[in-house]
């Protein structure tokens, strides 16, 4: 469950990473657009795969929790 929470954070980091090696506006680009694209798609694929692995498990956790009629799922309290 915590992995599911961390996944978007990891995704954001991966997607923001290209900013580090990109040159300032106006400078001549020192890296390749095509490989940047490849990198982004690879990061995307990683996210998709991890989400696909996590998804069914989360559902089964969820259902397992709801079955016994447990009313206090406290770990989702917003405040």
């Amino acid at each position, binding site marked *: *469950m915590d992995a*599911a*929470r961390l*996944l*978007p*954070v990891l*995704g*954001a980091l991966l*997607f*923001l990473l*290209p*900013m580090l090696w*990109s*040159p*300032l*506006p*106006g*400078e001549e*680009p020192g890296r*390749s*657009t*095509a490989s*940047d*694209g490849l990198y*982004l*798609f690879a990061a*995307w*694929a990683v*996210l*998709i*795969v*991890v*989400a*696909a692995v*996590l*998804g*069914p498990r*989360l*559902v089964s956790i*969820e*259902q397992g929790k709801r079955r016994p009629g447990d*009313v*206090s*799922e*406290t770990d*989702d*309290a*917003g*405040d």
Partner: protein
Amino acid sequence: MQGIEPMVPFNILVLVCLAYVLVLFTVAFVVEHAAVRRRARWLHSPLVYTLSLSIYCTAWTFFGAVGYAARSGLEFLTIYLGPTLVFVGWWWVLRKLVRIGKAQRVTSVADLISSRYGKSNLLGVLVTLIAVTAATPYIALQLQSVTLSFGVFASPVDTFGAPPGKEATALWVAVGLALFTVLFGTRNLDANERHHGVVTAIAVEAVVKLAALLGVGIFVVWGLADGPGEIFARIEASPVAHWTLDPGRWIGLIFLSGAAVLCLPRMFQVTVVENVEESHLATASWAFPLYLALMSLFVVPIAVTGLMLLPEGANPDLFVLTLPLAGGQGALAMLAFLGGFSSATSMVIVAAIALATMVSNHIVMPFWLRMQPSRAVTGDVRRIVLLSRRVSIAAIVALGYAYYRLSGGSAALAAIGLISFVGVAQILPAMIGGIFWRGATRAGAATGMILGAAIWAYSLYLPSFGPEGIISAAVMEQGPWGIGWLRPQALFGIEGMDPLIHALFWSLTLNAMTYCLVSILGFPSPIERVQGAAFVNVFEGGLTTGGWAGGKAEAEDLLILSGRILGEDEALAFFQAEARAQGKEGFLPDPTPEFLDGLELRLAGSVGAAAAHAMLSQVMGGETVSVEDLVAVANETAQVMEYSAQLEEQSEELSRVARQLREANEKLTQLSEQKDAFLSQISHELRTPMTSIRAFSEILMEGGVPAELSARHAAIIHSEAIRLTRLLDDLLDLSVLENGSVRLDLALVTVQELLDRALLAASETRPERRFIVRRDLPSESIYVTTDPDRLTQVFINLISNARKYCDADQPEVRIVVRQRAGRMIVDIIDNGTGIPEESQALIFEKFSRLTDQNRAGGAGLGLAICREVMTNLGGTITYLPGQGGAAFRVIFPLRLQKAA
């Protein structure tokens, strides 16, 4: 590659479009019917759900992404990366939204916000206005893209200018879309019944767009180039490679698109409102990002190849179409055309449904309610809601078309996608704050949104109309009245920011800050606190709203109200189920707070939370949040909650049992009283004829009576004996029926025949009264297998009862016949005062007679016999409350099987 001729004549293109729409139509129609018969299990598959989410990819992304890539390189990806993050992180926000949506029966994003902040209609109106303002140009953009792509086919690509009938094309597209949306989007009233047909049609369109874009991409990579290697080299060599990553825009756009996927009314509609099962989100969490990735996979290759191969100045927004055309691939171009067409149509359809629901629930309905002079809601609300939704759909599409005409289909539209995103993103603080922060208040949400929307309009939306538009070039340069720090694109004197990011930053920052500040300084009203707790703690169950205390309303009034909104059958079914849950028989539950909450939620599914609350308030008389509710909200710590939930469960169980016992006891007492009364009654009934028989026979025995007189005496004896026999027959009949040892003579008859016979026989009861009988003969001509004599007996009884007891000046009997799931339903309704609520439970008992007035013979066995007859016929007879008179519902099977 020069001199590309159009592959397809214009009229054939129109035919293809029509055929395509017809296919969609059929899909929607078939699915809708399957859904009604509850056969379509596959409808509820997570795949359909995921595909329906693809309306995120509108024509703007289908055609525009390539243009975007041609102009600014990889930046177009941000539009897909944001939603990817949101969906991958579904555990945080989406799951909660969907759960809340289900628990509160949310009908739209405006309804969510309005419901969270104390069912405030002000907020509903605000969100609706923002959404409509932001969506109008977006719809115009879809019309433009369809028109442009028509243009590509209908005339050589070199002369993009004005293909003949451009306005007409857009008009026809708009009219067609409005029609489709009205037909399939406003069938059901309750949002929780969902639009299966539309959703499936949209899933089909999603497949078409994906196939089209992948097809063009594969053709470009392996047809026009030698595979990925060469494309790689071409990208490096092309002007696209010279884009620079602006960190501000990069972060800003990822954030913006993530916000938009949550706040866009159409996305909210498919993600939350149309969601059938929460677990579908788990699938969508990876499948939807996958869909987005596939949609954007070939965008850069297409852009690069288009820039290389097509003549200078060709519109990069249309590369998806023009590249296959230039390559001589007519069929592929047609597929691409249909892909774009799909993207545009699906977006317009869902957006129109979502916006129309909002407009109708938050603007039209409250206004209409305000117009109602009386406290109670009158008239058929259901029809009015549907009508207002239909009109809203037409109006919204018309607005889009008007915008398209006014803007002249210019390039100014191209940037509108992101501008529209910033507009709806103003809802984000109120939404996220609303589901995570209990202290958020209505005032905070309202001021934040108003401020954010104002900044958005001032610094981004209005300037997008161009220098001749509402904001003049002078104001843009020097600020209004020469105040420099108010310049629309350099607020507070901060210059050099990208206009879009500038507007996004200021509007959202100030929006969120005001929202928090006003919320902290203010204090939420009771309803807001209750709703806030229900939203934030949605996963903890228990403690739902709890707002209606003290049942001042009559259950019957509520039934009438909900009948007008939900439809009569559904309301009756709902009330019956609730009554059963309370351990009561019949159709009328006690107006307990729990029941009222349930009813409000149910109504909210049809007309929105605010309107439902207002309607119930009208019936209940004022808003009612009791001190106990507030104490309950204030005190609930986790332990108390858990403990009290258990206690509550037990006490609920206890009170249900107690109620059942009490009712049974009451019934028994009443029955025993009745039995005593009957015994004296029956001995009286038996003794009167007996006495006269004895007296007259004694006279005859004494002899010496003239022949004429003795004949008369004999006649009296005879008729009294007949009366006795009839009474005994009735008693015997009843006991036979009760034992279940009755013999049924089954035969095939029409319902009409039965009713004709019954009406004829019943006309002997009080023949002096003129009765109007309303029937619908065609609905009665259904053959049933049953015991005609027995069933007729029941009808005779009901109709003569109506003739006997109906106290209206112009008595009238209405007979409604329906067929449902292999059973016939016959309602017999008169226009008298009906039967008072406290007696409704007793009328079917033996020897019960409501009043002594109007007694027309009989010992009060009629309805008891009816009930036993119906039980023997495998059916039921019940009293129907809330019909404006005494009403009985007789239900029996179409084909009665012979038992033995």
